[in-house]
Each structure stands twice: as structure tokens, then as C-alpha cells.
């Protein structure tokens, strides 16, 4: 039985390799190299984020939106790829994003109430 499963796994991998896929679809386990590439992208984005600290004064207006965009990119890359939400059941995504959406809504209301965004 286990031999049959191993044979199946190796056949699946061979099938993937033949198509040059680094990660699977519909629930296949992505390879280590795929995660390493994602980590390199995340490291580059982190370096870009840090570089905003030394941006000249003339670019400071663009720094905040750029930082928020880079933060969102990193957040969704980690959640969907490292935490496997992209490859997993949609129920898990629903569980997590419901909590996240509720938190964002509640605390935006909180910040508006205390006039945080008033210039």
C-alpha cells in the first residue's frame, strides 16, 4: 500500500517536472525552491522598505503610500503562499479574512471616531 503511494507521488512529481512546474495546482505541495524564490522577493521588498528611511525630503510625500503598498504585498505573499491559503480550502481563507476584515472595519471606525485622519 505504502509502496503504491510512493510510486504515485514520484509519478506525480515526474509529471510536474515534465511540464516544468515549480508548484502545484489544486492542492499539490510546492517545492522548496519555490518558497526560496518567494523569500528572496520578500527580502528585496523589505530592503526597499528600509531604503525609504534615507529617501530625500522631496520624496517623503511618496514614501507613505509606497510603504503601505509594499506592506500589503508582503502581507498577502506570506498569508497566501507561506501559510498556503492559496493552495488550501477556501473555508480557511474565509475564517482568516473574516477576522481580518472585521478588525480593519472596527479599528478604522475607532480611528475616525478619535479624528485620527483629520489634518
Amino acid at each position, binding site marked *: 500500500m505504502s509502496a503504491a503511494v510512493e510510486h504515485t507521488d514520484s509519478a506525480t512529481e515526474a509529471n510536474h517536472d515534465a511540464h516544468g512546474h515549480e508548484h502545484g495546482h489544486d492542492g499539490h505541495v510546492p517545492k522548496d525552491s519555490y518558497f526560496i524564490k518567494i523569500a528572496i522577493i520578500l527580502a528585496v521588498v523589505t530592503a526597499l522598505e528600509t531604503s525609504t528611511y534615507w529617501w530625500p525630503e522631496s520624496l517623503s510625500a511618496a514614501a507613505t503610500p509606497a510603504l503601505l503598498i509594499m*506592506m500589503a504585498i508582503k502581507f498577502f505573499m506570506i498569508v497566501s503562499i507561506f501559510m498556503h491559503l492559496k493552495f488550501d480550502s477556501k473555508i480557511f481563507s474565509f475564517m482568516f479574512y473574516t477576522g481580518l476584515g472585521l478588525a480593519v472595519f472596527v479599528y478604522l471606525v475607532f480611528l475616525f471616531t478619535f479624528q485620527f485622519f483629520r489634518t
Partner: protein
Amino acid sequence: MADIAVHDVDHAHTDHGAYEDHAPHATSTGLSNNKLSMWLFLGSECLLFGGLISTYMLYRGRHEAGPGPDQIFDIPLTSVSSFILLMSSLTMVLAVNSAKRKDDRNTSLWLTITALLGALFVGGQVYEFTSFYHEGLGFTTSLFGSSFYTLTGFHGVHVTLGIIMLMVVVFIMQRDRITGDKAEVVELVGLYWHFVDVVWVIIFTLVYLIPS
């Protein structure tokens, strides 16, 4: 024969839509209840950290009695800490992949490296807190100080709990004491660890990098 077997495996995955390389769970959803609970817990943690982050955002300008964020934050040091925590997420995902391949030796190795990187991050945070204290920012110095220490302290406690969880998993794996699905246990700890990392991604940007 191999083609038929491959087709069967694909069919099983498609039916349940789950990232699981084993038979579906005997639950009403066909998914692991443990994993479902972990995602529900992480969803609720968003509310906890949302509260702490928004309270900090509200009070970060209130530092009449002591130093403010621009005077004390050491961005290069915090960037290195952030990079370390980010790399611990990579080692964690490699541990999960090793566990799915039933490679216990590499699973333990990656889990240990993840715990060490986490400890390095916590060490950096302790150093940062100590230097801030010496620069005059105590917990009760100002509203900025209170909200900053509460937010980053809560995160530090989460990282510390994650390190303990990682070491416990390594310990019980080496003694072969895990009953049930070993890969799922590693994956659950992994989900918690990645969440802690993702919270730091937000803290690093909103607290440290965006000027007040």
C-alpha cells in the same frame, strides 16, 4: 497504472480543495478541525493586534514628557530584526515541507533553525527595549511609550510562545511521541509562526517606517 493512480490523487485533491497529501478527514467539512480552529484563532488574533496597533497610532504623537519615535528608533537595527524574522518564515515553511515528505531529520533541523532565528529576534527586541529605557523612555513616561511597549511587548510574547512551541514539537518528535498526523502538527505551529511574522510586517511599516 501510474496514470490512473495520479488521476485518483488529483481527483481527491480537487474534491476537497485542501492542501493535504493524505485522506480527507472524517469531519462534516472533510477538513481538519484542528486546522480550522487554528485559522479561527488567527482570525481572532487580528482583532487583538488591530486594537493594539490602532491604539499606538492614536497615541504615537503624545510624548511631551519623554523622547518621541523620531528620536529613539534605530531603523537599521530594526530592519535587521525584521529580515531575521522574515527568514525564519522561510525556514518554517521548509520544515512544513520536510514534514509532508515524512523527513523527520530535516523537519527537526528546520524547526530548530526557526527557533534560533526567533530567539535572535527576541534578543534584538530586548536590546532595543533596554536602550530605549536608558534614553529615557519608560513604560509610564508618556502615552507613546505605554502604547509602544504594549504593542511590541505583546508581539515579543507571541514570538517567545512560538519558540517554546517549536522546541516542544522538536522534543516530542525526537521521542516519537506525536500521536496522529505529524505533518499537521508541524503545519499548525507553522501557521502560528507565519502569523507572528505577518503581524511584524505591519508593525515594522506602521510603527517604525512611516513618520509620525
